[in-house]
């Protein structure tokens, strides 16, 4: 197994609802480097789920992709038909969705889940062969093979999450997308699962796109951090550089609002103001109403994604780009 690269370029997606059009993703460009753990960080309404749904082709029926591409192994995933994408699902790209513990079928044993997934993707296989495969996978996530015979309700949240991670490795994909993999767990289990993800990454070198709203979690695991706000990708860069000196004013505010034992708590503060409505986002840069350094151009024009040196990207007029 090795990691593949994913490049999202200029993704524009909206949701059509009764009240209007929700601009969920506006011109989103981001890159998951091969073999890296890239954290996609964003709060509610940031659009990170939309980006994930576009990559994994799980957009709901009222979503429309207006433009952009998702390049993976030389193919634009957005342009594939459902049939064509099936070749990638599970085999090349696997997806552990949010609150995935609830997506396990209560009427099937764990083994049956493996069997179903295998059948869906690769057709039939000898039962004992699959059993061995599944047992090995479970072992790699720290579970006993006996779990294969259990039903979901007999297992704890942490165990279910490990099973889903094991399932996602069934076909040794080159990209695993994990959406909030630890949010629904207790603190101890969270750390154990994070440790597991880190182990698996080190062992197999696959690319991982980790979507989370929890900045400390991103900090502990990710090689690179990408931040989204109000449907825009506003900063991307290496982990340490990001925390050392966040570039975008929103990123600065976000890092400053972190409550963790690793930061000096007398210096924390919230970002003033409220996140914007995606039905009627502000003109120009979406952050300008709350930005302490907003300039006139910020209120008028959406800034371009600018290179800030050393593989860092930021979408902000403060860093150049003016005509």
């Amino acid at each position, binding site marked *: 197994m090795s990691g593949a690269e994913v490049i999202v370029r200029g993704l524009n997606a909206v949701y059509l609802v009764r009240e209007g059009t929700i601009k969920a993703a506006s011109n989103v460009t981001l890159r998951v480097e091969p073999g890296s753990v890239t954290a996609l960080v964003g709060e509610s309404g940031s659009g990170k789920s939309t980006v994930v749904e576009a990559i994994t082709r799980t957009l709901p029926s009222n979503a429309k992709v207006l433009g952009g591409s998702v390049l993976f192994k030389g193919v634009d995933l957005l342009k594939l038909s459902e049939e064509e994408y099936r070749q990638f699902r599970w085999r090349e790209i696997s997806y552990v969705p949010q609150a995935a513990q609830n997506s396990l079928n209560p009427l099937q044993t764990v083994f049956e889940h493996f069997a179903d997934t295998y059948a869906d993707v690769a057709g039939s296989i000898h039962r004992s062969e699959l059993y061995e495969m599944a047992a090995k996978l479970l072992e790699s996530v720290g579970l006993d093979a006996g779990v294969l015979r259990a039903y979901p309700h007999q297992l704890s949240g942490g165990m279910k999450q490990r099973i889903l991670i094991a399932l996602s490795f069934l076909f040794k994909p080159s990209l695993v997308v994990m959406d909030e993999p630890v949010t629904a767990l207790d603190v101890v289990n969270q*750390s154990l699962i994070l440790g597991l993800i880190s182990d698996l990454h080190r062992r197999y070198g696959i690319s991982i796109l980790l979507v989370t709203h929890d*900045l400390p979690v991103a*900090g*502990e695991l990710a090689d690179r951090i990408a931040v989204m706000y109000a449907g825009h990708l506003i900063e991307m860069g290496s982990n340490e550089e990001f925390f050392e000196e966040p570039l975008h004013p929103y990123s600065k505010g976000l890092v400053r609002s972190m409550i963790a034992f690793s930061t000096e708590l007398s210096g*924390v503060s919230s970002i003033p103001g409220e996140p914007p409505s995606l039905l009627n986002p502000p003109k120009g840069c979406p952050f300008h109403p709350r930005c302490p350094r907003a300039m006139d151009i910020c209120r008028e024009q959406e800034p371009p994604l600018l290179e800030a040196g050393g593989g860092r990207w930021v979408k902000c007029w403060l860093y150049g780009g003016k005509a």
Partner: protein
Amino acid sequence: MSEIVKLENVSKVFRRGGILRKESVWAVKNASLTIALGSRIAVVGESGSGKTTLARIITGFEKPSEGYVYWFGKRVDELPKKDFEKLREKIQYVHQDPYTSLNPVRTVYDTLADPLRKHGVDNVEEKVKELLRLVKITPPEYFFNKFPYHLSGGMRQRLAVARALTASPQLIVADEPISMVDMSLRVSVLDVLLGLNREVGLAVMMISHDIAAAYYFAREGGLLLVMYGGRIIECGPSEKVVSNPFHPYTRLLLLATPQHKRSFFQERISMMARYASAKSGVAPGTGGGGDACPYVASCPFAAPECESPIELKEIEAGHYVACKRVDALPEWTPPPWYWFASKRDVA
């Protein structure tokens, strides 16, 4: 009367089950604590630890199965209905979910004006503006006819706090006030609560599963309580508990809290492993009703003496812990990622 609420050996059991099989769940066992005027307390625990039940007993939404609750020195179970209602106003409970704790069909103005009118306040509009400013919802007039769905989670939570203030309470119990609020807005909610405590002199108790947030809230003069399996297992000044924890569960909780530096991740996990057993990470079931330590099943340091009743004992000035194996634990040094790791004399 400097005591607002006093709990004396309070326990609460929930009985479930049908005709044949009755199941008893002791959500809280042998809890004793005093909340004084102007005090600040953070209660930390995971789901199932009994922290919410404790909060609801304190605010009168649950009756204890054992033990006594005192409000301003009076036994709550002996209060006549009128007195109960009058005193209850002074102890306000703020719910965890700001999406259901505000009535979606009432405007911001109505939400605050209704209780103000009920208490015979003269200039309702002025008072509403004052309260909104107090919780940093400004400009107040702009929000008068907005509905809760127009507000973000952080703002809704602050509105819920403003509503609690309409009764001029002495104590506010905030149950998980920030768990449903975006990270960049959490500090504003906590700061409002801190402001009410430091500047207005209200007693505030905060319940949380996040020990870092609890520490932020209770530092510099506040008390930190740790709950597990329905029991209070450690309590003391916030700085002492966080920099010198004695209970193995408290240590596990502290080590399990994510910090943001990648360089410390592996070390954090391996330090945590020393306090986690094979059974760790299984949700702490609430105790079976006995007085033994509820952490026995998950504790890597458990020994036969843990089956005997535990109680809180003072281990250093003002710092209490309920654990029989305190002396058997490895030495504790503040983990290297603590920002004050170099400052050993914080406590």
